[in-house]
Structures are given as structure tokens and as C-alpha cells.
């Protein structure tokens, strides 16, 4: 079986083929979906969880409120790692009961995250310190499979050969090259930055001609430890995928 990039929290979670969600009149669902996809999110998952959340919200006393928050939570859940901070702040306000009638219900917020409402508090607590926290639990330590061979939908034509953690949670560097090099990344390798959380990740090409030895160009981030990155990246010589696992 060919493994493809993806996050363990999505494995085996069915995504229905649903119609575009109908949001409050001042919100353009089509544009939000376009942006979600452009930022690396999965449109089908976004529709699926947002539709589920709207069903819950519309059964509440404020059916047309909180759609902006639910859309952001759903986009985060569908893999837009860049929305994590904003979505988490919105979730905190929902749980604190702040924001009055503008906020969605906690049950709707849980549905937007694909969570059982019973796990919502624990999820928010865990996420404040660990971007990989997932109260329902994951089998094993694997968080995500990232990258992959371009012919199978990935970004790389060669294997990732070296990796190094950054000083930010979920941040890593990966050197991609046909040859491993002996004392570190070989000259001319592609250098990629990985930013990941429990739901999604982004890979940004920093340079396609990295110097030998693993020096990081400006803007690539600061070197850190596995503890700071709260994760580690495992590489296999048989695969173009990189495997993001929890820090032990």
C-alpha cells in the first residue's frame, strides 16, 4: 500500500460529500473555502465539519450567530496550520463564555473540530502548551506523514535525507537530496521548513541550493531541540515521506 501525506487524526475519519455550507448572510462561504484550500486545507473536510457544526448551532437559541468562529475552527481542523493561534483564541473565548451572542455554542465548536463535546475542555487545555494534544488519543506516537514523492502528490522528487528541530513547537528543517552526504546535508540539497500541528502542516521551500553541512539561511528559523519542537522527524530510506512523531 502506498502511504500518502496526512495526519493520523484524519485516518479513518469519514468525510461526506456535502454541499457548500450555508453561512450567515455577511459571510462568503465560497471565498472562505477557496482560502482554506489555498492555505493547505482540505475542502471536503472543511465542508464536512462546518456543516456538522452549523447543524448544532442552528439547533441552539442563536442559530445565525458564531458562524465566523465556526468557519475558522473548521478551517484549522481541515489542516490550515496558520490559523491555529486565532482559532485557539476564539475557542478560549467560547469556553469562557465571553463575546455574548456573537459566540457559537461549545457543542458547535466541538463539532467544528470533529470532537466529542466531552473532550473540548481537555483539548483546549492541552493545545495551549502542545500543538499535538488530542484528548481522544492517537494509536502509537505518529502524528503525521509529510512530504512524499511528487508523482504521488507530494512536493519532493528525492528523499528527505537530514532533519533538524527548530526552537518552535512543530517546527523542523528537512534537507531533500538524491544522495545522503556523509557528514551532513550535501551541497545543493533542497532545504524545507516544516510547521505542523495536530491537524495540518505546511512545507515551505527555503532554498533549492542549500550549502553543505546543514547551515540554515536567514529566515529559516533558529535551531532547537526535540523538546522545544515537541516532536521529532523520522526518515526511512525506502520512502519519500517524513514521519512526524511525538517527542518521547
Amino acid at each position, binding site marked *: 500500500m502506498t502511504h500518502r501525506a496526512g495526519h493520523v487524526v484524519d485516518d479513518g475519519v469519514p468525510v461526506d460529500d456535502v454541499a457548500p455550507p450555508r453561512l450567515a448572510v455577511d*459571510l*462568503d462561504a465560497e*471565498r*472562505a473555502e*477557496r*482560502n*482554506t484550500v*489555498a*492555505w*493547505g486545507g482540505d475542502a471536503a473536510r472543511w465542508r464536512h465539519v462546518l456543516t456538522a457544526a452549523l447543524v448544532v448551532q442552528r439547533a441552539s437559541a442563536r442559530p445565525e450567530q458564531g458562524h*465566523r*468562529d465556526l*468557519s*475558522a475552527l473548521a*478551517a484549522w481542523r481541515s489542516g*490550515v*496550520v*496558520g*490559523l*491555529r*493561534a*486565532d*482559532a485557539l483564541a*476564539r475557542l478560549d473565548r467560547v469556553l469562557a463564555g465571553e463575546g455574548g451572542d456573537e459566540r457559537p455554542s461549545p457543542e458547535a465548536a466541538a463539532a467544528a473540530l470533529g470532537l466529542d463535546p466531552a473532550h473540548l475542555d481537555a483539548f483546549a487545555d492541552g493545545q495551549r502548551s502542545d500543538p499535538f494534544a488530542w484528548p481522544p488519543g492517537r494509536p502509537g506516537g505518529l502524528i503525521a506523514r509529510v512530504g512524499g*514523492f*511528487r*508523482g*504521488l*502528490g*507530494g*512536493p*519532493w*522528487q*528525492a528523499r528527505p535525507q537530514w532533519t533538524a528541530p527548530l526552537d518552535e513547537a512543530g517546527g523542523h528543517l528537512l534537507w531533500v537530496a*538524491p*544522495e545522503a552526504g556523509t557528514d551532513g546535508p550535501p551541497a545543493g540539497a533542497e532545504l524545507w521548513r516544516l*510547521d505542523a500541528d495536530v491537524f495540518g502542516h*505546511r*512545507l*515551505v*521551500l527555503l532554498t533549492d541550493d542549500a550549502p553543505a553541512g546543514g547551515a540554515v539561511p536567514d529566515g529559516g528559523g533558529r535551531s532547537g531541540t526535540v523538546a522545544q519542537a515537541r516532536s521529532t522527524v523520522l526518515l526511512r530510506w525506502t520512502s519519500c515521506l517524513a514521519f512526524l512523531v511525538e517527542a518521547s
Partner: protein
Amino acid sequence: MGDRWNRLSQSPTRQVPPGPPHDLTADDLFAEPDDSLAGPEPLDEKLRRAYYWLVNQAVISPFYDVEFSSGSPVSFTLGDAGATLDLPTEQSYSSNVLLPLLTLAVGGKCLLVGGPGRGKTTLAVLMGVLAGSTPADVRRHVQQGQPQLTVSDLVGLPLPRDLVQAASLDEVTVAWRGWLTEPVKIVDEYNRIPTKTQSALLTMVAEGYVESHDQVRSTTPPSGVESWFFTANDDGGGGTFPVIQALRDRMDVTVAALGFNSRFLDELVARVEAGEKPEDHVPAELVLSPDEQSRLRAAVRAVPIPASVRRRVEFFSSHFEFVQHGGRRFEYRTKDTVTTGGGRVPDVVDENTGADLAVDLGAQTVNSLSVRALQTLVGYAKAMAFFRGRAEVGLDDVAAVLPFALRGKLLPNPQHPRFDEGADRELAADAVSWLADLFEQSCRQYTSLGLDGDDPVAELLAQLGRGLDGVDRVEASRRLTAVEARITAIAGAGKLYGRHYDDLVALKYVHQRYTGYLAWLEGGRA
């Protein structure tokens, strides 16, 4: 079902979202995206995505015969007849998909050969759809080669009214056939077309126009880039009509349509059950607009060939022109002299008892490389490098396309002992493997002769290339002496090979230039 066809490779540029990673908000989610940050997709990326869509979704071709490896690939010896299976360390490709795609990129001519039902026409039709035509139009415009095909069938008919009323030919309006200006032109089974019609086809292929009743029509589409795809079930001169040599020579690359791998029958079953054709499902984002086609060709042409690679191609081509007993005057000792004089090159090669046949690569062929063949080789090597995302052409890019660009053009000498005995006998029928091996042998010779570091003829040519400004009589005389010394050194080696022939002709050219310059200097002073 649509999802099955529309699964595309994601390019890295498309996966890099705009802006820093952690600062998106819900307000951004509902804002109009800033398209200025995205930029257009690079054309090499688009070409690669088209390739991967073709091999992963459209055609069932699990063959990876265009191999790239850095270091030594893992190799297995199989059976008792010397078969080996290599597992390349870098991404490798299917020639029967990649070469047609590169043909589309460079605006070339591709001959697809192979038995019936191997997907030759399907591949050509897919190229037409990738160039922006509708599947129905591409299929309608496929020219089916058959023994009754006339020039009028091919190019169009003069209007009967004009034929009756016109006082001169230029008053006759010709109803040109629609396929003539398609960006991708497909001629099926071209070896079944009568000779006269083949000649009309040759004008189109070679000159880019068609003529009928004194009327001329350009076959160039709006993009300025046209590619041709020919199919044939025989590449050995068979068919209803033999293909005229000039038309055969216009085929830039020749690719064999490989057989069906029985392990992929499940995919075939799915297609039969769905009643689908891949050309009806080409994703819109893979289609090249006319502007993209012309930019693509320009970008391919712009890929540089470094001097080190160019020099090895020069060395390779130098082997084949010379034949020791081809003529009397030195410049005429060529295979072309033999052929045009009615002789047989294999017999003349056999007469040369002085050279080592194992070293003399030129002895393996009955002809030499035409300028057109070399231009094709350069063009496709650039396309290969562009496709692989390389900044310049590498030796591996040249090696990858060379067998397909020279197949049917550089012809084996059947009397050479290599094709007659031992483990290499199968190369007589396998032109692609033979040509690949020939280039490999040439590169090995180049290395063993140490030409990378020490190439006196190249230095003399480079010295002349820098110009004669400021070169005085003494310096010109010194250079003349250096040329003569070089010729003396070659003469001292005794045995003469093709590479010496090209060097000696070039040295004579350099000598002539300095002799003329010296005469001018002395005349001016007098």
C-alpha cells in the same frame, strides 16, 4: 469517477501559502485573497504535473526505461542470458510518455512505433488535448494513413466553382483542411501513405507550409509552436509504402510504445467497465495555453549547455564521419563520400586493418550524424534538463535523450564483429540500448584520454576565438608552429580515428586563419 481522473500532483509552489505560518485569522478567511503573492505556476512544474498525471492516471505504463542514478544503482542479474535489472537511485521516467511530452514542449516531431493496440494514437491524442484542443477535435483531425490517401485528402480541395470560373490559379480558393493549423498534428500509420502524399507531408513537416493550386497556407498555429506525432507499426522500412528517407529523417525522436503489463489489468477492467477515455478527462489546469506553449519553448531553449557537456557531445559526434579508406584527399575520407559514390561503408570499414575495431566507435556505424540530428539532440537534452528542473544541461540529460534522438539516424554497421558474436549480438536489433552504450563508450574514452583537463586542440580554437586584435607577427608565427606541432603529434600516434579527423580538419582551419592573418600583416607592412 471524476476524482479518479482529476488526481493531480501538487507542486511545491502551490503548497507554499502566502504569508508567515502563524498569523492567519478568521478575518483573513473571508477576505479576498491577495493573488499578487501567488504568481503564475512555473512551466517546468506544469510539465512535470502533466507527466505524472499521464503516467499515474491516463496511460498504464509502469516502465521506467529513462533511468537517472547518482552513484551505483542496485543491479540484479536475471536468467542465464545476461539480463540485468537496474533499480535507479533517482527519479526515472517512461520514455513512451516523457518523449512525446518533451516533443510537445519543444515543438518537435515524434515517431511512435509499436504493434497495434499499444496506445500510440491515444498518447498522441492526449498531447493534442494538452495543447488546448478539444478531445473531439483532436480525434477528428487525426490523419489516418491508408494507401488511397491523396494530397487533396490531406490538405484540402479547390472550390469547384473557382475551378470553372477562375482565369488563373491564384483566383482559385482552396478549402483547406482544419487539421493543418492545429497545434498538435497527428498522422496515424504514416508508412501506409503513398509516396506522393508523403512528399506533400514532408513540405509541411520541413517547411511549415502547404501548397495547393498556387495557394500557400502556413501550418503554424497561433502559439507559433506546432508538434507532430506520427505512428507506425514498423520502423524497419516495412509498411504498405516505404517511408521516404527525407521524411523519416525529420522525425526528431523515435519512441517505442511498450507492451501492457499484465499486473495492471485491474485498471484496464475499471476503464472497460466505466467506458472512459483518458483524453476526455484531462484536467483543465494541465492544458497549455498558446502563450504558455510559446513561453515553454523559449524557456527550454534558454537552458544553457555547459562547455564540459558540449565537449563530450562534440567528442561523441567526432567518431562517425571518418572512414580510413573512404577517399584519397584527407577531407574526403568520409562515409558520406563512400555512400554518395555508390560504395558500401561496411566494406570500406573492413579494409581498415590499422585501427582497433573495439576502440574505433565509428566502425560500428554506416553513417555519421547529420547537423539536424545534432540540433535535435541539443534541443531535447535542454528539454530534459528543463523538465527535471535543472539550471543547465547535464551529461545525464544528454545520455537520456540520445538513444531516442538518434534512433533511425545513426545506423549500425551489420558487418561489425560486435553485432555478430558474443553477448552484444542482441544490440543489432535493440537500437536504443546500442546507442546508449555507444555514448557511454565514447564518454569512457573521453575520460581515459584525459580530455577534460588537457585538450590542446580546444585551447588552440579558444585562443583563435578570442580574436586577433593585438596579435603581432611573432605571436602569429608561434601559434602556427603550435598548430603544426599538434598535427605532428597526432601523426606520430600512427593509428587514425574519427576524433583525429575532426581535430585535424579543425587544426587546418586554425592554420589557415593564422596563415591568412600573417600574410595580411606582412602585406600591410610592405
